[in-house]
């Protein structure tokens, strides 16, 4: 039995006005375990706290009940007081007799009656309290960034800047991501490469950053501060540390007809390739599906021409195991497939392209060296039709499109239209839109400039059908404002395809036990207040893996994620919440019910040896809770069929005692 002290606060007249505090203190004196009971004007004041400390000493108290304001207000205060008096801080219970009693009940009789009952419940609970100590776990001072696009690059640079080691895992042969493929960036129209490639070089030269390119994460174990990650380094058949990136092998490779992913298949690359001139790391990679030497054992030209001797046809996939304290997900996005949009004739005509393909077409390093030429016949297009919201805001066709707004299309289409009119004033440019959404600094001004200064024809309506006819594309569309159906003979049709999270995100989320929404975007811990953290502790979100984002937003989120990571890595030890679940292994039957409901993956199973009454031993599978991962929601305690699982601080017996005390 505890020796409980009860302290009833007046809170000036806030409580004393509608609750007879003396009567409460008197009534609680007779409760089991209570050895001391008093009331005071302001319990949270220094004098009030000193009074508690003195009473602990004088009456040898082991538990404290404070009848005062909400525990959300002063629980922490009174826990500190208890600790100062030499008690375990978790031996304090608060009876909320202000917010939930004196302030909501006008009648002093009922108010006092309720306050007494709430006090009794708190006494009943504190009688069953046990001292709790928060667990501590060390922090591995290194971060992992998954994805090497602008989001991953920025996050890694910011973390490295604070002095912590960072590894970037990128599945492509080079970092850079989608931004490396872009031509110009809105709303300032500076060239993407000019602002991105210096950052890529910074990453390569930063001593704190390691790049695992052409690699993927295959396994994640552990928890915040202590992740064990397996990284698969795919064989690129070129020794990364030896290759100088001179490109001699690329020149001589006889397999020259491989569709070039970097230019979205609009031109060809060789079997051994460097994705683009500014690639980081600038190292060649052999495509095993195209290389004759790897497929048939015949050729070997690249090995012959490589003066550095970097080619290694026998290279195998390599698995690297590393420890990390924090993980940042920056897996980014992809445009959705246009194959299912028959009405726009994407798969029928080469001159119907996506915006990202347009981006490559206008890029000086692109397949047409920056000249805007039709992919089909290399002629200059005179009429270009841009179609917005292709697959975005598409509720009815879930198998084709996405229900959300892809956010970036309005701005990049305005950019494309403006740049086209700027470079080729003889071109007619139509943009079909449903709504033009340009919230953002200087965004709407940018769009208006496209219309007012560059003469881009914005038409409110949608394109219904594109039919290739001869060398023209017949575009049938509606103009809602003038209530007309338009028929335009276009030379080029550009589709603003919706964007979706990268396909690798879903399996990664499973590995990380991070939650995702129905669109496979990662869910943030709180949509407003914790936008860069995953609900899983130690996992952070950067860039478009969390939702559609443009570059400025991605960079700011990347910085925010980095600062959260730095905050975590700056700690030597993590102090957990001691109110976590724990399993009584004698009662546990290893059924996995608890692990199935745990949102954090905090529960694992271990085979343990148990001594039986007849002195034999038996091995049983029992649940184990990792206190560093458990957040203390208690879902498992209810799921447990044998009652083995309980929550410290909110134990079954404690809540039951409260119920009993309330129901007299």
């Amino acid at each position, binding site marked *: 039995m505890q020796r409980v002290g009860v302290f009833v606060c007046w809170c000036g007249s806030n409580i004393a006005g509608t609750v007879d505090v003396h009567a409460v203190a008197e009534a609680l004196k007779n409760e089991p375990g209570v050895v001391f009971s008093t009331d005071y004007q302001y319990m949270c004041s220094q004098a009030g706290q000193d009074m508690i400390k003195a009473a602990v000493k004088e009456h040898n108290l082991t538990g404290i009940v404070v009848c005062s304001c909400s525990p959300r207000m002063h629980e922490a205060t009174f826990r500190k007081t208890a600790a100062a008096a030499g008690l375990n801080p978790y031996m304090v219970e608060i009876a909320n007799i202000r917010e939930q009693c004196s302030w909501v009940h006008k009648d002093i009789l009922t108010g006092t009656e309720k306050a007494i009952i709430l006090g009794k419940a708190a006494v009943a609970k504190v009688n069953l309290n046990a001292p709790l100590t928060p667990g501590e776990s060390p922090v591995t001072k290194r971060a992992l960034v998954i994805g090497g696009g602008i989001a991953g690059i920025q996050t890694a640079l910011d973390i490295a800047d604070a002095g912590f080691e960072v590894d970037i895992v990128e599945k492509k042969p080079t970092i850079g991501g989608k931004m490396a493929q872009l031509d110009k960036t809105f709303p300032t129209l500076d060239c993407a490469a000019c602002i991105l490639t210096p950052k890529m070089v910074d990453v390569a030269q930063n001593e704190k950053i390691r790049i695992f390119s052409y690699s993927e994460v295959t396994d994640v174990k552990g928890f915040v501060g202590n992740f064990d990650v397996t990284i698969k380094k795919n064989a690129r058949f070129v020794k990364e540390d030896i290759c100088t990136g001179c490109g001699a092998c690329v020149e001589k490779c006889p397999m020259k007809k491989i569709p070039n992913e970097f230019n979205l298949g609009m031109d060809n690359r060789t079997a051994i390739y460097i994705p683009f001139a500014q690639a980081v790391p600038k190292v060649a990679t052999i495509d095993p599906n195209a290389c004759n030497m790897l497929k048939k054992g015949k050729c070997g030209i690249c090995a012959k021409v490589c003066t550095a001797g970097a080619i290694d046809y026998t290279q195998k996939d390599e698995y690297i195991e590393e420890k990390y304290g924090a993980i940042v997900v920056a897996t980014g996005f992809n445009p959705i497939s246009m194959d299912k949009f028959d*009405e726009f004739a994407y798969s029928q005509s080469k001159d119907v392209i996506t915006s990202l393909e347009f981006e490559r077409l206008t890029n000086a390093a692109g397949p047409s060296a920056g000249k805007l030429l039709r992919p089909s016949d290399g002629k200059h297009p005179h009429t270009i039709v841009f179609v917005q*919201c292709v697959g975005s*805001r*598409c*509720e*009815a*066709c879930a198998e084709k*499109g996405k229900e959300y707004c892809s956010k970036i299309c309005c701005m990049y289409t305005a950019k494309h239209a403006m740049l086209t009119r700027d470079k080729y004033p003889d071109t007619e440019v139509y943009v079909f839109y*449903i*709504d033009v959404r340009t919230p953002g600094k200087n965004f709407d001004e940018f769009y208006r400039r496209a219309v007012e200064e560059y003469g881009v024809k914005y038409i*409110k*309506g*949608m*394109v*219904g*059908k594109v039919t290739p006819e001869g060398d023209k594309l017949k575009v*049938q*569309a*509606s*103009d*809602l404002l003038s*209530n007309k*159906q338009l028929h335009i003979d276009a030379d080029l049709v550009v589709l603003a395809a919706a964007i979706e999270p990268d396909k690798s995100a879903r399996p990664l989320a499973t590995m990380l036990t991070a939650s995702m929404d129905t669109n496979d975007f990662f869910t943030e811990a709180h949509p407003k207040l914790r936008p860069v953290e995953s609900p899983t502790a130690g996992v952070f979100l950067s860039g478009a893996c969390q939702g559609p984002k443009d570059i400025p937003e991605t960079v700011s989120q990347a910085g925010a994620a980095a600062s959260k990571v730095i905050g975590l890595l700056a700690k030597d030890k993590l102090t957990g919440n001691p109110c976590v679940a724990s399993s009584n292994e004698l009662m546990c039957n290893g059924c996995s019910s608890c692990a199935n409901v745990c949102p954090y993956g905090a529960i694992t199973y271990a085979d343990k040896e148990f001594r039986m009454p007849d002195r034999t031993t038996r091995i049983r599978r029992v649940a184990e809770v990792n206190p560093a991962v458990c957040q203390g929601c208690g879902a498992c305690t209810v799921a447990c069929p044998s009652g083995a699982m309980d929550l410290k601080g909110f134990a079954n017996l404690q809540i039951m005692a409260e119920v009993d005390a309330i129901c007299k």
Partner: protein
Amino acid sequence: MHNTEYLRDEIIRISGANPAKCMRCGKCSATCPAYDEMEYHPHQFVNMVECGDIEPLLNSESLYMCLSCFACIERCPRGVEPAKFVEAVRLTAIRQQGANRLTADNVPPIVDEDTPQQLLVSAFRKYTK
């Protein structure tokens, strides 16, 4: 004006479609092959039904110009199904009049040798009560 509201609800009930889902993209009208023949275009149908502006629709020739090809239903990104409204208004018009759009007497002058039998059958099904 409770009749307007009643009509509107009735059209929505018969069609089984929801005009509130429309985001005014106009893809239905962009895709409509009978656009030029229609006084009220598919997107206007949706909007007018939503606003309860049914009377002009009931009296419009547009009802009979719709080919019921359902291209608008197929292409609508929001699943609004404009053709179902056209169908519902047409049914309402025919039921209200208690009269048929097409009578047997109307047929001979518009038929020529190339007209398939099936067309007549379906026309009767569509334009008569």
